[in-house]
């Protein structure tokens, strides 16, 4: 009896705050004024096909860049030789973890806009003429913000796994003449591949669900599905289409999770 009692609060939270709303949303995607319908899905597909593609491209690109960055930072933390650089990098890379997406987006607006801090600084130190200054407040800004925000999280997982590797395995490769890039690619990454996948899947899912960043960085069309959903609800009270868009997002993240789970299961079977 005791195990069930201990489990009950967790089950209640998952049920009440996740499963029930999810079921309502999924149900809502197929609900019209005259009963069950596929019109919401058709509406979502016809109106927001470009946004869907835009979302997918942005999140895939951001996930890939996050993965590259996490491997690069984790790799340097594991194989780097400069003690000062290691200490600085180790201390600094976590900072964005503690900044909410909305604050990151606001900070990024001030940084990468046409008259933002980045352009002004580059012009001021003479690295770029004023005419070259352009705004990054479009899809590039969303990708930059997502990567900046997710990189610490992914790095935390990847660098932690790298740090837990048997150090003598790295030394053995070094001893045989491997340089650090070869050690990273041939020895370190294959041993932490699962952790990298976990970091990427979780980052993908997180980025799919962020509203504030696309809303604040680039509200123009095409935009991300989260903005489209908010628009349908706030402007039209159209919960049906919003739910259909939510279902599409859910299917996209579900597919990614499924691919990862399949791979993890195949690895365990080996």
């Amino acid at each position, binding site marked *: 009896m005791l195990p069930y009692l201990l489990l009950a609060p967790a089950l209640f939270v998952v049920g009440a705050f996740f499963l029930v709303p999810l079921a309502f949303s999924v149900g809502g995607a197929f609900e019209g004024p005259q009963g069950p319908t596929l019109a919401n899905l058709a509406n979502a597909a016809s109106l927001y096909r470009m946004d869907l593609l835009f979302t997918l491209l942005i999140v895939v690109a951001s996930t890939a860049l996050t993965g590259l960055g996490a491997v690069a930072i984790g790799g340097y933390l594991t194989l780097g030789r400069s003690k000062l650089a290691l200490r600085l990098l180790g201390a600094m890379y976590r900072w964005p973890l503690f900044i909410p997406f909305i604050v990151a987006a606001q900070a990024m607006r001030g940084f990468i806009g046409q008259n933002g801090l980045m352009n002004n600084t580059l012009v001021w130190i003479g690295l770029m003429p004023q005419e070259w200054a352009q705004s990054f407040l479009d899809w590039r800004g969303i990708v930059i913000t997502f990567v900046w925000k997710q990189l610490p999280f992914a790095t935390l997982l990847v660098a932690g796994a790298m740090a837990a590797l048997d150090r003598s395995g790295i030394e053995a490769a070094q001893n045989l*003449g491997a340089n650090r890039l070869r050690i990273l690619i041939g*020895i370190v990454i294959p041993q932490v591949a699962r952790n990298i996948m976990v970091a990427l899947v979780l980052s993908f899912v997180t980025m799919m669900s962020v509203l504030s960043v696309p809303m604040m960085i680039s509200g123009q069309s095409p935009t991300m599905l989260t903005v489209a959903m908010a628009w349908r609800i706030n402007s039209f009270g159209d919960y049906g289409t919003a739910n259909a868009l939510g279902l599409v997002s859910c299917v996209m993240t579900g597919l990614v999770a499924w691919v990862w789970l399949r791979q993890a299961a195949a690895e365990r079977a080996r």
Partner: protein
Amino acid sequence: MGTSVEVDDLSVSFGRTSVLHGISLSVAAGEFVALLGPSGCGKTTLLRAIAGFVPPSAGRIRAGGQDITRAPPEKRGAAMVFQSYALWPHMTVAKTIGYGLKLRGWNSGRIDAKVEEMLRLLRLEGLGARLPAQLSGGQRQRVALGRALAVDPAILLLDEPMSNLDARVREGVRHELRALQQSLGITAIHVTHDREEAMIMADRIVILQEGRIAQAGTPEDLWARPASAYVADFLGATNRLPVRIQGSQAEASPGEAPLDLAADRSPPPGPATVHFRPEEARILAAGEPLDGLVFRGTVALSAYPGGRWRASIRVGRDDVLVDVPDRLPEGAAVRLGIPSPAAHVFAAP
């Protein structure tokens, strides 16, 4: 073919803790040297400094006359076999052995041929496609050795590579490794805390004590003439009994003849300690003379570990162990004789 290694006045510190204090050591090309000592004596640090994994705070390391003190590990021509074997869990045996060759730009045909040769040499035929998790401890150890030997290193560094093997396998591997080193002519430096392993395998043994060389020499020299109580104790002379030095003579029990000590082996007059091995002491018959030290004691216990009896003899307040051919009755009064070559006398601590 091997190359010489010279370590000159080498010191290593970790933060404020000094681990090696001015070690000087010379290893000839093709020689097998064992670094022997208990945990924490600095033997692995010395090996890792030679391999390039630990930066020295002072001193020089040369290989074949070339200064390699600041050279990165990959430029030293030394291959290391790690205590944990350090095999890569995702890599097959064949790929692991061929890894160093791939780094050297060999084509796959040459790599395959060399890997096959190593697999044969190390009796790993047919295991090339296996992952480390599918191998036994002895096989893993041989793969680690194969990976190091495949690149034809001038220096082979062995960091307790047998400590994870069971006793029966270890016995065979010692002889195999020594034969292999001799046939390939590689210079080998072997870290171990196992005295027997060092004695069997090495041309020369270097005993380390708290980051300094306590004594270096051939196994026979160290065995017969330990320079200090620490070395004697580490080389199996674990029995200790108090003696008194008068002039150049050591006195044991009253009424027994004193032992004349050679001038270079005599501690200063006063209290001293004799160290001896259980298998080198004897029980003497009443009145039997001996060129050595004789103590009177009683038998406290007899046990049979196999082959011969081991008796615990109480002398005064000390207990010592002695190997005897027959069981001694407990409580019996005995004369314990330590022949002169087996009696290692040092000033009392």
